[in-house]
């Protein structure tokens, strides 16, 4: 129940205005979701280091959570490189080389994880794109690609951690924004749970993220995972997924949920509404495309 946006600059140029582009796109479709806004941003990465973002709240509650997290880092053999508290979020960079899935479940039990990855950072909070930017300084974020999401909190309360994007719990650098509903959610979730995955929310977006990440961890390319997702997931959906190097979308066979894209030599931008794309090119009439039913595609920043 929301507006989604994604952008990927095709050339390996880490220094693009990804944050600002996403703010503009989300501001354009803020009417689709005034409750909360979120960003999945892919920036610089350092081999052997992982960035983590947590929701910790504020005040004593935050202090307790950060304390717990530092303990878990130590227990799990993660060496803290840097950390900071930003708004109700806590950001930490650690050196870690163990089993990421196990590590992520362990930290999840200490505090709400928003993202874990070498380059991925997820920022989400209550309010509009500009509100979140004010709190987290998104517009200065530079990187190659990212996703954004504005949320109309319909089924649960307005809570920062319930916002999008969703990180694929347990998998590095996989994020998703999704508009629609997966109607065989429990069936799919139980299948994944039987394979040992834990879910931290009842949100179907998390399910898609874990589903795709699981496929990729089995060596299946993202594009193929998107293809099977269309048959395996039921309901009506349009979603965007991002990994460290790629961005992709999938759309169900009914193609009821809006999605529109613009592509040129430099970038691919996808959003719920054309108005978001227009924001990237003020005053220009764009040759946009609406993806057909049951379609999927990926773009990689390396090509």
């Amino acid at each position, binding site marked *: 129940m929301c*507006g989604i946006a994604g952008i990927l600059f095709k050339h390996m140029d880490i220094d693009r205005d990804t944050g600002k582009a996403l703010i503009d796109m989300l501001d354009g479709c803020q009417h689709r*979701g005034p409750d909360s806004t979120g960003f999945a941003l892919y920036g610089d990465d350092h081999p052997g280091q992982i960035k983590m973002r947590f929701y910790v709240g504020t005040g004593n509650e935050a202090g307790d959570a950060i304390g717990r997290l530092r303990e878990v880092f130590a227990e799990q053999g993660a060496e803290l490189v840097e950390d900071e508290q930003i708004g109700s979020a806590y950001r930490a960079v650690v050196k870690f080389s163990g089993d990421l899935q196990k590590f992520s479940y362990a930290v999840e039990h200490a505090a709400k994880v928003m993202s874990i990855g070498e380059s991925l950072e997820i920022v989400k909070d209550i309010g509009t794109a500009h509100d979140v930017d004010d709190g987290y300084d998104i517009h200065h974020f530079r990187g190659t690609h990212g996703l954004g999401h504005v949320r*109309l909190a319909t089924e649960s309360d307005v809570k920062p951690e319930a916002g999008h994007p969703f990180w694929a719990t347990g998998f590095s650098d996989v994020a998703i924004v999704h508009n629609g509903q997966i109607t065989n959610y429990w069936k799919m979730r139980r299948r994944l749970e039987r394979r040992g995955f834990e879910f931290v929310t009842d949100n179907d977006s998390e399910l898609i993220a874990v589903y795709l990440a699981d496929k990729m961890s089995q060596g299946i390319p993202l594009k193929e995972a998107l293809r099977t997702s269309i048959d395996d997931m039921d309901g009506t959906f349009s979603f965007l997924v991002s990994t460290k190097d790629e961005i992709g979308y999938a759309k169900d066979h009914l193609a009821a949920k809006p999605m*529109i894209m613009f592509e040129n030599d430099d970038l691919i931008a996808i959003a719920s509404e*054309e108005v978001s794309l227009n924001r990237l090119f003020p005053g220009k009439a764009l040759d946009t495309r609406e993806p057909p039913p049951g379609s999927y595609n990926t773009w990689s920043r390396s090509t």
Partner: protein
Amino acid sequence: MVTIDLSQVSVREGNEQIRAAGAAGHDIEVLNPDARHHIGVGLIHPVKVTVRGSAGYFCAGLSDKANFIVERNVGWGLGDNMYNGSVVVGGNAGAIAGVAIRGAEIVVKGNVGSRAGQVMKKGTLLCAGNANFMAGYMMYGGRIIILGDSGERLGEDMSGGEIFLGGPLNSLGSDAMLTDTEQAEIDDIRAFLDRYEIPFKGSFQKVVNAGKKLRYGTSETPVRSIPFFTFSGQSDYWNQKVQEDVYIKSQIGRYRVRGYGGARAVPHLTDIAFRKDITAASIGDDPVGDVEMKTLIGGLHGAKPLTLTMPVMIAPMSYGALSRSAKQAIAIASGMAGIAENTGEGGMSDAQRDAAKQLIFQMLGGRLGWNIHDMNRADGLEIYISQGAKPGFGGQLMAKKVTKELAEIRGIPAGIDLRSPSRHPDILGADDLVIKIEELREATGYRLPVSVKLGAGRIRDDIKIAVKDGFDFVELDGMQGSTGAGGAEVMEYVGIPTLSAICEAERALASIGRRQDIEIVLMGGIRDGVDAVKGLALGADAIALGTSAIIAGGCIACMQCHVGQCVTGIATQDPEHEKRYKAKVEAQHIYTFLESVRWQIAAITKALGHKDVKQLSRDDLVALTPEAAEITGLPYEPDRRNVDLFQAAG
């Protein structure tokens, strides 16, 4: 020429200025549209509107007679429901361009998005570029001209109308076929293209409905309902009713269709009771005079609320399912009783408008009978998402009832088994719904309450969406609600009881602390003032009566509404049968019934010790059955069943 700069004023102010300029006969120029939604909606004057840039959703929607020019692109729902007039778009249009138009000329010089012309009835939609998938989806009439690529599944499930394709055909939709063109048609298209200065010299292929899905294949032998049947328990699992069902389905090869509501007993308001005794002494001589019952509904967001003399409304029922006379009788009675009537799906008639003092106008996915002029003369607008009797289904009207006149009002071909779309073209989630609500409000100047009709299912989630989306009130319809025609299995086995619906809705809204932000009108199997008071005490702000009002007005509950030969003249469009219905006499009966409901509501409210119906609460109730106790969370007091209520009245 009036110039409106949307970088200076909000869309709401801009639209007010556009309408004012239109009324004064001035042409209009809109600057800095910035792809904003709803530009020009609700304009009903023959003026020219030039949009300097791109427009967002529903540009020129719900308009009549005006001529729009948009220099660049437009978003979803271009020209939504336009009657006459035109829109010329210089660039591309998003999905569902020309949705539900009823006479307009819509010209898109670039490409159109998916499902162009969905449920259109009349007029022309021209796409000079390429169309995306499912152009002409469920169209009922009119003409689509595509000069470029057809996109996939052209003419998917179209019921009527014509599609002319100048470019390559990608694929045909279900129940669409190619047919020969006639020279006159081609000449007419050429003239149209010339008029809009579009150079195209190619030839055309023509796509029309193939006619395979317009009627049910095998018609079901109408049988009169089996009396006294019981649902399966231990010994009668394969009862007569099951046998009949199997027998008939083994002949027709599909689900059965019938009228009325769910047949079997489900947990109901009657399974709860009042905590206090209702005695003649506690009622007094004039309960109606002693209890405040006036109820305002729909004013939470600034619209003019419906003013009800008691917390009661008439449930939505269509002219179509019901005869004109029956609708008229209900309208008259509602006016006499000082409550609100509802058009249902079937559009608004003058007689109904005049008779009903307050009238809610309902919009369904097929947009049958929907139009800006009737919106403007309505007292409330309602978006139908689903109904209790058959949630998930669009309206169903068997061919027998789709008369020429009805087809005309609804803008559809006569004589089809009308199965209305189950979804709206432009409401595909809570997010789109926000924009749709906004369009309706923009088009009518924020004067009217906007409500949603919701069949009870996943109420915990749905009600939160309703409140988040900013509806003024929700008409919450439990599975006991009736319908003119629906699949029998759906009536029995889809949806939750009215009692469950109100309790779940209250709990869900409480959980997000938003109960005060929406009003609930409860319906579905509410039969009298006793049921009504229980609904109110459980949290509803008002209740709506459908079937019981019809019964008061002569319905004999034979459950054969779908056949179209209603013996009493209520659920029929056959003039010979309708003649049997004495609208004025029955209006009086319905009115008398409503007054008796009023008396009962007042009497119980007073006997419970209240002066105002708004004081009714859960504290006034106890549950009589384990099911009701568990659903409602009320104290389980089965002994209240045996209390000899009302001894004094004898």
